[in-house]
């Protein structure tokens, strides 16, 4: 087991782009080696060690590597980008694109996450013990496929466009979900325990379950006869989006 502890030397406004900060790059490396990994800061690059205190305990394979960010990293972007295994624990707020394109492993955030959490994620798990901003589990601008696999759990609320263009995987939001969650869903499963506005616009495929209040249900869903029961809860069943010939299922109370 290898544990890498990172803490910022001083708070920053200009974001640090830590796309190299993942278990794949850290496994088996010493504190010096990790400190020498370049990161982008504004319009220049500098060694990670110039910005972070780096402590390493033990040595391990990627699967056995855990990275712990201590304190606020709300201006550190792309933590865990493309990671394939291992674990990242963030004890504070985290900036945009955390877990972008991740393929495996686990990210636990004990704080809030900025936009694009788990964007284009293909596998693994993200647990957010706080609130998320926009575009959780979505895709990059212009991309037709967002999150493809894995699971994201948000124990707080999210802002708008949750799971935009999702084509696989699962998102669970314990709180409210803002505007247009599950827009253009194409095969993902989204469960929102709180409220949502205009859910599942242009859903082609997949399942969206909303336990709380739904505002402004879009006039492109057909209510099916009867009700559907999921885990002991009874829902009204809607199918659509009719405008994309959708076979998606929208369950609301």
């Amino acid at each position, binding site marked *: 087991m290898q544990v890498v502890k990172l803490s910022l030397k001083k708070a920053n406004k200009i974001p640090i782009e830590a796309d190299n900060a993942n278990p794949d790059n850290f496994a088996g490396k010493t504190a010096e080696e990790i400190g020498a990994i370049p990161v982008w800061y504004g319009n220049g690059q500098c060694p990670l060690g110039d910005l972070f205190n780096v402590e390493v305990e033990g040595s391990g394979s990627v699967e056995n590597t855990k990275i712990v960010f201590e304190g606020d990293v709300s201006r550190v972007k792309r933590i865990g980008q493309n990671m394939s295994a291992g674990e990242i624990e963030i004890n504070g707020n985290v900036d945009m694109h955390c877990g972008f394109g991740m393929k495996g492993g686990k990210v636990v955030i004990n704080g809030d996450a900025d936009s694009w959490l788990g964007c284009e994620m293909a596998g693994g798990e993200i647990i957010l013990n706080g609130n998320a901003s926009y575009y959780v589990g979505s895709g*990059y*601008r*212009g*991309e037709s496929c967002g999150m493809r696999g894995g699971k994201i759990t948000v124990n707080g609320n999210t802002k708008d466009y949750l799971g935009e263009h999702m084509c696989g995987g699962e998102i669970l939001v314990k709180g409210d979900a803002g505007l247009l969650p599950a827009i253009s869903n194409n095969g993902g499963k989204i469960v929102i325990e709180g409220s949502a506005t205009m859910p599942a616009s242009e859903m082609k495929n997949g399942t969206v379950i909303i336990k709380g209040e739904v505002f402004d249900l879009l006039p492109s869903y057909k209510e099916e006869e009867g009700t559907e029961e999921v885990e002991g809860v009874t829902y009204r069943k809607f199918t659509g989006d009719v405008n*994309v010939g959708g076979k998606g299922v929208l369950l609301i109370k």
Partner: protein
Amino acid sequence: MSEILIKNASVCDPAQGINCETMDICIRDGKIVDSVSENAKVIDAEGKLTMAGGFDGHTHSAGKINVGRFMNPNDAKKNLVPGLSGQVARTEKTRAQVGYNTPNTYAIGYRYAKLGYTTICEAAIPLLAARHTHEEFKEIPILDKMGLSLFGSNWQVMEYIRDKEPEKLAAYIAWGLKASRGYGVKIVNPGGGEAWGWGKNVSGLYDPVPNFDVTPAEILMGLAEANERLQLPHSVHVHCNNLGKPGNYATTIETMKLFEKVKPSRDRQSLHVTHVQFNAYAGTSWRDFETGAPMVADYVNGADHMTFDLGQVIFGPAMTMTADGPVEYANARMLHEKWSNQDIELEDASGVVPLFYSPKSFVNAVQWAIGLELALLVKDPWKVMFTTDSPNGGSFVNYPEAFTYLMSEKRRAEVISGFSKMALDRMVLPGIDRELDFYELAVMTRSTQSKMYSMPEKGNLKVGSDADIAIYDILPGHVDPSTEYAKVKKAFSGAAYTFKNGEIVVKDGEIEETPKGKTYWVNAKVPENIDTAMQKDIDRKFRKYYTVSKANYMVEDMYLQKPVEIGTEGVF
């Protein structure tokens, strides 16, 4: 005076019938010359294949491509051909680069140059939006540029044809080329653009255009007559009706036949048919869709009045863009894709739709095969121009990959092995064993272009020609393209040297210098009285129908980078 001596080059120059002979090439002040002084800089090209700079005679590289960039920002980071795609940071010598199918202007220039290409022809300039095309030309470094202006659904053109005013029609074409600073006459789905103004299309050569009482066949013949009357350097350049539809090979052959009676006014073809792959489909629907290439090739083999280009498909993502508005709408609906459309008042239509060619799709597999079948079944390489209709069939950065398909049956078999039986049943490619040699490849990528565009200074290494030269690190006779296709691809992917007007712009596959290229346009002379009569008609068009004034319609001189005016004398 700058002089260069390229020594011991293995020269392949079909225009002179030189087939991989070892010789020296002398350059002075940007031109190829007989000899140079002892002060000349010496480049040792021993063991290296040396050709004229490549010439892409049909590419979408300025204007409409911007819509493609705009709607697909996700193309920017695509790095499917390393070294020739994706995001590249700026350097002291080069601007920042992005993209694969729709690279930014700088990347277009650098990447063509890396492939040894030095001239491109933009395939579609809408007259009204021509200024935009030239603005992009200015930002494409290194390459010489020219473009074809769209006339196929133009109100004034259709009216003159309907009213049987061939002289005024020719005068209008001359004026339109001048207004748009175009090099030649492009006809896209004749009449279809106007029909698309009402959400409709024309169904074939004899289906009249709504409200204008002319047929696509009449438009084609009228424009061909005007083209020859003006003695333009290029023939009409035709994108046939019914593009992309099963069974369209018949329309294509019918179109080709129409031109048998057109007498070219210069030593070139009277018809160029473009991206024929998209127009060589047999069958009656997508269910019984199959190759129509053998029929088209058969006809072409017996014809001597025409040239064509391939529109070869490359598997992976592509970005389709064409003035054929109804085709793009149909594509978007069928594929559930994004759809951009831009109809141009009084003139034409256009659309842009991204798509993905998959070897697993039997339709896409057959499309891929059709392009190659056309290239290999047509016996005379001088009738064939190699293109992917970039980026419609795929990005130009895949040309080296496509060359291996043309040069190696083994390579083709490798690709074909991934096709379904259904696909194999619908193509004839597996039975074709022809493999192109370097000489034939040079014909299809350089020499044909020089001839068909009447550009004697391009596409060859004759004394007096522009010193646009590509030197590739591969030696014919010492490599067997049939089996060593990986070497072929590598050599063509990054030229050892690319010379542009005698300047080394690429060395060992990297950009050395980024000079500005020239812009070619055609100024056809028309008798004053005919021009005056014609101007009266278009003045009325501007007064009543256009939303810009005539004065602001003409592309001003300042938009042309290093302009080269090609004058022709109209015969009236």
